[in-house]
């Protein structure tokens, strides 16, 4: 049992949060924002970093990776805003940007932003993300809109089923932002243990994956999410096969550690509208 005063110290209300803008050097942890298109990732990104990434009410507006930073408590975090995606198996270039970072960018915590009015459709990506990493926090955004439409989301039930922290937020007004960041800090530091929901494959399938894994690790040492690569290869994914043989996989992994430099920062940040 905690004494009242010690509880106060750890209460989110008392944790200092600072928006650090675009200065992403010297950070302690990297946090990625994933989610379906138009669920409010960029709005959340802006609220937390103080940057002005272009936002708008239409799917597909963010096409590049934007990076910003914030401080929460004593630690500094880099926040990476990613294009929206429905699945990790997608083909278009904006979705590839998101997928590559989630798989190979080694985020310390991935925040899956969900639209409270469309939980079922949004869960598909959430489960895929849970397949590849333990370090996940789910943010159920647009709670106000869902309430207006008579949709109620039981975040406790979601958290129990998914095995990761689930926080309801309203990114536009900044509601519950502190609770979200507290959950992110816990998962990123490893203090919060998660038990992510995983859909079990068949025994033969698992054996095949285990057999292939050491070979992949021999070809590409230090590759994050080799398991995902193994599954894609077993599935006969031509794009992943090509990436492995051409050595592009290594290049993709290396690129995730650099800021997205293929466009000017201004264009990436503001859509230069």
């Amino acid at each position: 049992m905690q004494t009242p005063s010690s509880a106060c110290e750890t209460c989110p209300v008392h944790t200092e949060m600072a928006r650090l803008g675009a200065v992403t050097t010297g950070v302690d942890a990297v946090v990625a924002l994933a989610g379906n298109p138009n669920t409010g990732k960029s709005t959340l990104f802006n609220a937390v970093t103080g940057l002005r990434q272009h936002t708008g009410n239409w799917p597909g507006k963010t096409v590049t990776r934007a990076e910003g930073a914030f401080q929460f408590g004593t630690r500094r975090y880099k926040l990476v805003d990613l294009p929206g995606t429905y699945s990790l198996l997608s083909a278009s270039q904006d979705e590839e940007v998101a997928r590559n970072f989630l798989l190979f960018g080694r985020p310390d915590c991935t925040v899956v932003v969900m639209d409270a009015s469309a939980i079922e459709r949004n869960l598909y990506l959430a489960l895929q993300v849970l397949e590849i990493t333990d370090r996940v926090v789910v943010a159920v955004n647009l709670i106000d809109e869902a309430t207006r439409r008579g949709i109620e989301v039981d975040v406790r039930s979601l958290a129990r089923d998914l095995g990761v922290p689930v926080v309801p937020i309203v990114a536009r007004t900044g509601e519950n932002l502190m609770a979200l960041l507290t959950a992110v800090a816990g998962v990123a530091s490893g203090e919060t243990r998660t038990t992510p929901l995983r859909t079990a494959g068949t025994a033969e399938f698992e054996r095949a994956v285990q057999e292939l894994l050491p070979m992949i690790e021999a070809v590409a040492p230090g590759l994050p999410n080799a398991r995902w690569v193994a599954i894609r290869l077993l599935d006969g994914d031509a794009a992943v096969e090509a990436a492995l043989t051409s050595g592009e996989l290594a290049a993709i992994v290396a690129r995730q550690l650099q800021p997205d430099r293929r466009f000017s920062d201004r264009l990436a940040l503001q859509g230069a509208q």
Partner: protein
Amino acid sequence: MSESASAPAPVSPQQVLAEAARLRRTLAGGFREEVVSSIYTEVERVSRRAVRTTGTSGTDLDQRIDHVVTSRWLGLPLMVLLLAIVFWLTITGANVPSAMLAEALFAVEDWAAAFSTSLGAPAWLVGFVWHGVFRGLAWVVSVMLPPMAIFFPLFTLLEDLGYLPRVAFNLDFLFRRAGAHGKQALSMAMGFGCNAAGVIATRIIDSPRERLVAILTNNFVPCNGRFPTLILLATVFVAAAFPPAVASLVAAGSVVAIVLLGVAFTLAVSWLLSRTVLKGEASAFTLELPPYRRPGVLRILYTSLIDRTIFVLWRAIQTAAPAGAVIWVLANVHVGGQSLAQIVAAGLQPLGWLMGLDGVILLAYIIAIPANEIVVPTMMMVYMAEGMMTDVPSVETLRALLVDQHGWTLLTAVNLMLFSLLHNPCATTVMTIYRETLSAKWAAVGALLPLGLAVVVTMVTAAVARLVWGV
């Protein structure tokens, strides 16, 4: 790879693929479908437990609005009407502040030039700095700032409401018939803001063929850099022929007409590309129509005024200042009794005439290649540098200068609007095309295809006008 070379059994990627293929054969067919369906089963289970729906009041209104906004008969006309309202507000609202800004800034120019002279600055320096560089800046600020400050918030408002996906929905059938991707409507809409941003926005299109079509045709919608040109010409020439009561309506109407023409060219060129060098069928796609959301007024003002308006204006200023300097040099360096500007303009005159324009306009376009924003100011500066105009510019003096002293006709204005709509994208956009395609060839096509089209279209228009009406 050095690490694997030192390992006991070096593995090549080919061996991994072979092993994967072998293992795949040991698995029951359709194992992947099983995995996918088990994910869907989980999704359904989890969401059934977590979500409770008690009513659908909010979605009802959205659906009713969408029923009208995306309806078969009303969808497109409503879109055009909305566009017309936006331009009308921009044109009527920008007139007065534009004139006031121009008056103030040109007063500063006169005062500063006189002051510098009184301090003993040499005449060439005063001319270069104040009548060259500063005048260029003054033109850009007074011509561009007010329309942008009105147009951008209106555009951002529509974007925040959620209208853009509806536009894509309405235009989808047209793009599909042109062999292009329906999401091209979205990258096209971004092009209205900035063609470079529009080119980057094509990343939402998954098929490389359709993405290339979208990249190469993005230039056919006028970006905000070209809107001031179009709005100015529409106000000074087209609208001036009508009674004042309807003038601004006519001006807005002609800008809408030009925009629609741009969309028509987008579709026509997409169609041509899809049937020639970029052969293929349009692919299917799903597009979410998000709920309408109440826009945050303060945020809209901030985004559209600070981020967009100031950003674009600053870019224009950066390019206008050197352009102003170049023009001053061209106009003030004389060879054999003629200024360089006159010599170059005279050289371009025959081509300009064929296109229904003149040598000065083409010269302005060449100087303004880095940024479309400064074409009209550049043109004015070249005309003015010839010592023809000393007055504070107003719509009337501008019209007098162009019509009376330089022989402009309605044909000149219309062809200039056409040329501005179609000609090559600005340097930034061409660079962006190169970065997105990583191909010098496609970047060249992206620049030369519109330029060629612009020359041909204006020549045809000029020839027809001269033959039929004897202009």
